[in-house]
Every structure is written in C-alpha cells, then in structure tokens.
C-alpha cells in the first residue's frame, strides 16, 4: 500500500510528498503524522510539496488541517517549496492557508523551525544542550 514516509530529524518531522496526492492518501498522512508527533514528541513539522504540480481544494484543506492539528499538539508546521502554479490555483480557489507557515525551500523551512524552537527555550533545553 502506498504510504508517504515521515522522517524524524531531532525534534523535527520531515515529510516530502513526491506522489500525486489523492484523498485517501491525504487522510492517511493526517493520521500517520498526528500519531508520529505524539509518539516522537516532535516540535516541528516540515512538509515539502515541491514535487506537487497540482493541489486541489481538498489537499489545500488537508495542509491547513495538519497545521491546526500540529499546533494543538504543540508542534509548528512549515509548508515548503510550493510551485508558482499551485500557489496561483490555491489563491484563485480562495484558499490562502491561514495559519500555515510557508518557506521557499527545505533549507529556509528548517532555519525557521530551528529559530522557532530556540525562541521557546524552556521546552528545548534538553534537546539542544
């Protein structure tokens, strides 16, 4: 069965979506990711969608949902590498993914998550010292 791998890097979970997303896969990713956040007590989630050429309203909604769920579980989500065409489509659909952090590429996304983590030192003293 198709599954999107979730990689753990320190306290950050890395998800790179490289296949065409269909609705069932999206639902499964939501489940897997929330479970993984809890089991690994992750503080950040980075979703790379640079290979996605098409995003429909359902997938857009899913990204929003993941961000919302992670926030409740106290993890910050960054969506990176959105293609221009995808961004235009989402805006035309009226989905601006409020509450989702974005970055141009994985590097910048990681920078953001690290700076976010270090801005909340009380939780991170164990991890980074």
């Amino acid at each position, binding site marked *: 069965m198709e599954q999107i791998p979730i990689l753990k890097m320190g306290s950050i979970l890395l998800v790179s979506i490289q296949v065409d997303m269909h609705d069932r896969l999206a639902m499964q990713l939501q489940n897997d990711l929330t479970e993984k956040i809890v089991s690994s007590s992750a503080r950040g989630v980075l979703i790379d969608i640079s290979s996605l050429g098409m995003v429909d309203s359902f997938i857009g909604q899913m990204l929003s949902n993941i961000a919302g769920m992670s926030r409740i579980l106290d993890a910050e989500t960054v*969506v*990176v*590498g*959105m*293609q*221009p065409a*995808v*961004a*235009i489509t*989402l*805006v*035309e659909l009226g989905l*601006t*993914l409020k509450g989702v952090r*974005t*970055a*141009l*590429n994985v590097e*910048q*996304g990681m920078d953001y998550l690290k700076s976010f983590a270090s801005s909340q030192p009380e939780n991170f003293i164990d991890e980074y010292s």
Partner: protein
Amino acid sequence: MQQQNPLGEIVRQHEADILADWIKEQLERDRSPNTRISLVREAEVRELCKNFLQHFIQGLQSGQTHNLQGPEWSELRNLLSVFSRDRALQGYTPTETASFIYLLKKPLFARIGQTLAKNSDSLYQAIWTTNDLLDGLGLQVMEAFQKGREEVISRQQQEMMELSTPVVKLWDGILALPVIGTLDSARSQAVMESLLQTIMETGSKIAIIDITGVPTVDTLVAQHLMKTVAAARLMGADCIISGIRPQIAQTIVHLAIDLGGISTKATLADAFRLAMQRAGMNIVSQPARA
C-alpha cells in the same frame, strides 16, 4: 436554379466602361476635401478594381448569386479580406473602406438598366440580385476591416504586457516588481506569474511590489494585489507594497479596502530599508573619502 445567368454576360460586355466609371467615382470621392487623397495612388486603385471586376464576373457567371460563401466566390473573398485588412492597418475609416464596394453600384446599375431597359421584370430581378450581392460583399469588407483593427489592438496589448512585467533583483533575496499602468485581470495574472516564477528561481524571501506607476487603485486592483501577495506568501515569500501615493492612500481608505496586514510603504526606498532589516542586514553610512 441552374439557369443561364444573364448578369455575368452583361457585366462582362461592359467591363471596360464599368471599370472606368467606377475608378472615376472613387478618385472623385478621394479628391473631396475631407478624405485622404495622397494615401491611395491612382494606379493602385486601378489595379485593385480590375482584379475585383474579373473575379466578380467569374462569380456571376458561375450562377451562384445567392451564396457568397461558396467556392465560386472564394478568390473574391480573399481579395477583399486582404484589401480591408490593409486599409485597416493604414488607418482608413470604415466608411472610406466600405465605399469601395458601394461606389460600384452606380456604374453597374446604369449598365444593367441600359441593357435590360425593355424588360422591366428581368431588370428588377437583375438589380435586386446585384444589390444583394454587393451588400453581402460590403459586409465582408467590414468584417475583415474589423478583424484587421482587432489584430492591431491585440498586438499592442501583447506588446504592453511584455513591456510591463519586469522583475528586478535589488539584493540577495530581495526582489522588486515595479508595476506600470492599470492592473486588469490579464495583466495581474502575468505579473503574478512572473513574480512567483522569479521568487522560485532566485529563492528570494522578500518581494517589493512598487505601484508608483499605477494610476488608480480600485477594489479590483486591490484584490489583484492581495491575490499576488497571498500567492507569494503561500510559496514562502513576504511582500511589501510600496509607492503608494497620497491620493491612492485616500482612495483605499474611502473604499474601505482591507489590505489585511500587508506591509505598505510610501516609497521604494523605505520598502527597501525594511526589506534589508528583515533580511538581517543594516545600512550604515561611512564618512566619504576625500
């Protein structure tokens, strides 16, 4: 109705006379004070009329006087569309272009009248058929004329579009997009696309959209700007809007447009300073070296 058509014969017999009269009519009209004499040279008109009459007679002799779209008239149609397009491109008015056909009526009807004077029934038939034909041809001229004009307009639009969407790199990670002219849907789409593409290629975190050259900002333009900013944000880049003139600031407030937390600056310089700050850079002045 495949009966022998007498019209073609009549026109063929009097071809030279009709041609001469027709050309005379056109040159006379061109000489009247409010038309452009110099633009059409006599030889050109003569050549054109001669070609036209030849094809016209061919069409008449085919007997298909009711259907201008048939293959019998295709050469005439081509001739007319080339002619009207040229005239449109040269800046002729629609009247000047269409009267080319309509001036043929007088000499043509005169000859038909002479020939068929004794038989009023067939005279009526012949005049009616010819009139119908020439009106149809006139409409074709107008259609082709219009098409020529539209070509000019769409070409100019294309050129404007190409002119007006440069994305410039101000610094590492800082882009600027100076927008000149009114933002309509098509243009804002092009602007958005080129901005997003450049953001992706250069990995720039900050884009400054400068609207100094935008004459007015209404709700539609504001909406286009918001969309561009939203799309850039989705890709992970921040936008700053600069170049907001006092009147535009007033209009935005009067129209109660909510710019929704987009940073705005009065000038490009201010926006650039802010962008530098956000990128973690600082501008310091040094004493000038003598």
